[in-house]
């Protein structure tokens, strides 16, 4: 597990994002391939990989969705080459099928999944904890605390992946992804030669093979645990008192921040690798009355501790109520959990401050679409509008307050179908071009198959805008042939070039198609104002 790459002679560590550190860790581990679908806070890993791809002779492709991205990485591993796949936490739900099953394969080249959780839900619909999914798939997981560790552990993850022939997870959180700090990089390893992995029986998950491979994966668990037990990333610090603190990931840094204020440093075990190094935890907890677990995300370690620590040792954390059950760790809640007095904070009571939520940009094409929809609503009264994930989700907020739902990527179309089937009509689905390609096509197949009475608005701004303007997988000119090719009735498929002056015209078109008692698709298109501006800057 130790990395033998020599230190480079350049001492100057570079200031970089935690996301950048993951990208360089992968590049310097000798990856040949990289795949991703953008999603905050993971996006910048791949932005960096794309930028560096040519110089490092790496194939780095944005993909239509996380499942496709993950499968690309498995294919690269089959070719004997190292590959990284990156996504946000909810993206791993989409990629869960190939992820979980890839654990059974006899992987060739190292396969590393860098997945970014968003505790506190800054830019996400939930705060699910990817450590649980690594556990679910029975594969090792690293949890870096700093940008430097993100670099080091990403590199190390490839070697571990090859040793056990399983995918290895690098679990990140928002604060680490979007933190800029100095990172010392080391000389790159060479890429692995093209060498097809085998044998076939280790790659064809027919039940007969799968049973054997699953048993093998289970039989490897003790060795994976042993690798975790002996990892130098898990650090025990002696301390005084009978309350111990167990930190994981960035939790260590909040403890470090408040340590100088504590009368005495408590015994402290930092855990950075999974499976949980239970023997180290047991040794740590041996003399303690209680253990406080500081972990960002779910009470994952907290729930594992009973049964590992002595019965008399109390386990404190998010589930016990010592820390808030949801949201990020902060210095404020860590102080409280450690019994330190709260800091007196400045207040201003003189003024009530207006909230300033995010909003659609001036000139955004979605403003036209929502403007037109509001007009239609005024005319026809009620309708059900299912929304989706992207900038246009902001249509839920004032001044539009136009959408009834936002659940997960692609859900708008399937939900509109179900709502219409159940009698909630008119049903309108609103989905962006990138989200449509991600997972909107399949539910549209269903709606076409049953000619469901619903209207789909594909809001085509020609980019993945919310995450910073990544290119969509197909040029926007292909949307119409895709929709028609699936079999939608051409009489009820329209492409509308939006313009603020043409909002009444768009409203009339939407109204006309709502009145059609079958499936209609309207593609509303105009380039995102942000990418248009960037393009002009580059061209200028």
């Amino acid at each position, binding site marked *: 597990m130790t990395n033998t790459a020599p230190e480079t002679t350049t001492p100057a560590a570079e200031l970089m994002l935690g996301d950048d550190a993951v990208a360089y860790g992968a590049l310097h581990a000798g990856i040949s391939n990289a795949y991703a679908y953008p999603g905050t806070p993971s996006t910048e890993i791949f932005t960096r990989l794309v930028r560096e791809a040519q110089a490092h002779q790496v194939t780095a492709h944005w993909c239509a969705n996380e499942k496709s991205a993950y499968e690309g990485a498995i294919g690269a591993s089959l070719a004997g080459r190292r590959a990284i796949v990156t996504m946000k936490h909810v993206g791993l739900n989409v990629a869960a099928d190939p992820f979980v099953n890839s654990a059974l394969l006899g992987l060739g080249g190292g396969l590393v999944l860098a997945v970014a959780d968003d505790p506190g839900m800054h830019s996400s619909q939930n705060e699910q904890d990817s450590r649980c999914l690594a556990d679910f798939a029975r594969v090792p997981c690293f949890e870096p605390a700093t940008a430097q560790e993100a670099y080091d552990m990403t590199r190390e993850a490839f070697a571990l992946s090859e040793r056990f022939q399983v995918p290895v997870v690098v679990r990140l959180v928002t604060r680490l992804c979007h933190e800029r700090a100095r990172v010392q990089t080391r000389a790159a390893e060479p890429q692995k030669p093209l060498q097809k992995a085998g044998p076939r029986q280790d790659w064809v998950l027919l039940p007969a093979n799968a049973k054997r491979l699953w048993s093998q994966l289970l039989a490897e668990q003790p060795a994976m645990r042993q690798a975790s037990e002996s990892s130098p990333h898990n650090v025990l610090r002696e301390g005084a008192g009978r309350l111990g603190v167990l930190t994981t990931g960035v939790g260590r840094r909040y403890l470090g921040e408040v340590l100088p204020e504590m009368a005495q440093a408590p015994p402290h075990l930092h855990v950075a690798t999974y499976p949980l190094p239970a023997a180290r935890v047991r040794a740590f907890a041996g003399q303690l009355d209680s253990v406080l677990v500081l972990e960002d995300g779910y009470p994952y370690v907290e729930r594992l501790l009973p049964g590992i620590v002595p019965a008399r040792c109390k386990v404190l954390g998010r589930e016990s109520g010592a820390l808030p059950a949801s949201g990020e760790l902060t210095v404020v809640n860590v102080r409280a959990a450690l019994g330190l007095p709260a800091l007196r904070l400045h207040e201003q009571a*003189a003024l009530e401050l207006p909230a*300033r939520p*995010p909003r659609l940009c001036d000139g955004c094409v979605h403003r036209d679409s929502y403007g037109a929809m509001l007009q239609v609503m005024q005319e026809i009264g009620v309708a059900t509008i299912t929304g989706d994930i992207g900038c246009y989700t902001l249509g839920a907020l004032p001044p539009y307050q136009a959408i009834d739902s936002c659940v997960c990527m692609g859900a708008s179309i399937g939900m509109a179908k179900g709502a219409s089937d159940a009698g909630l009509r008119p049903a309108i689905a609103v989905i962006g071009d990138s989200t449509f390609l991600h997972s909107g096509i399949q539910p549209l197949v269903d709606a076409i198959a049953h000619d469901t009475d619903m209207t789909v608005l594909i809001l085509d701004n020609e980019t993945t805008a919310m995450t910073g303007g990544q290119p969509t997988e197909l040029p926007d000119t292909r949307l119409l042939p895709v929709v028609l090719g699936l079999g939608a009735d051409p009489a009820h498929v329209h492409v509308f070039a939006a313009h603020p002056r043409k909002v009444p015209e768009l409203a009339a078109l939407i109204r006309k198609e709502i009145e059609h008692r079958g499936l209609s698709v309207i593609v509303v298109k105009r380039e995102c104002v942000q990418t248009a501006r960037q393009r002009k800057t580059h061209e200028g």
Partner: protein
Amino acid sequence: MKADVVLAGVGGQGVLTVARLLAEAATVDGFHVVQGELHGMSQRGGAVQAHFRLSDQPIESPQVPRGRADLLVGFEPVEALRNIAWLAPGGRIVTAIRPIANVPDYPPIEKVLEALRQFPETILIDAHALAVAAGSVRAENLVVAGAAFSLLPLTRGKLRGIVQKRAERWTAAERDAAIKALAAGRAAIGGAPPVHG
């Protein structure tokens, strides 16, 4: 020696850019640096906050703890006020005063500035006017950067060098305005001593 800084403004104002410039300047000066920000949904015209910590010791928390900021840098007066809980006792506020009233219930600007003046050692800067005088309305964030920089224990001139390097592809007029904007920000601080915790 350490300084903890919270920067607050509205998406599109260049808050993250300035946080990054300060972090780079402090790195060149040999400090340990941690700078945190959020990307994604929050960028779309909403309230934006960035954190920047420098120290001669290794830095722990990725965020400035509430109640610990030595300096609160406002790019917009309401956003400065919104983040007042981050300010340490004795911490200083430096903020631009031009309101960005992209919300319906924006309070009268005089009341906002009055509330800011309640905090001792608040420095209010007409960064917009100074940027216009420097030659570019778009350099407002660099006026704020110049002001914030001169309140930090950093070597004079470092920030200018970093901006100049970034500005290599800009027009001569843009470069000139940027440098003047930094200087105007510094001048607006007067002789106020640097903050440090």
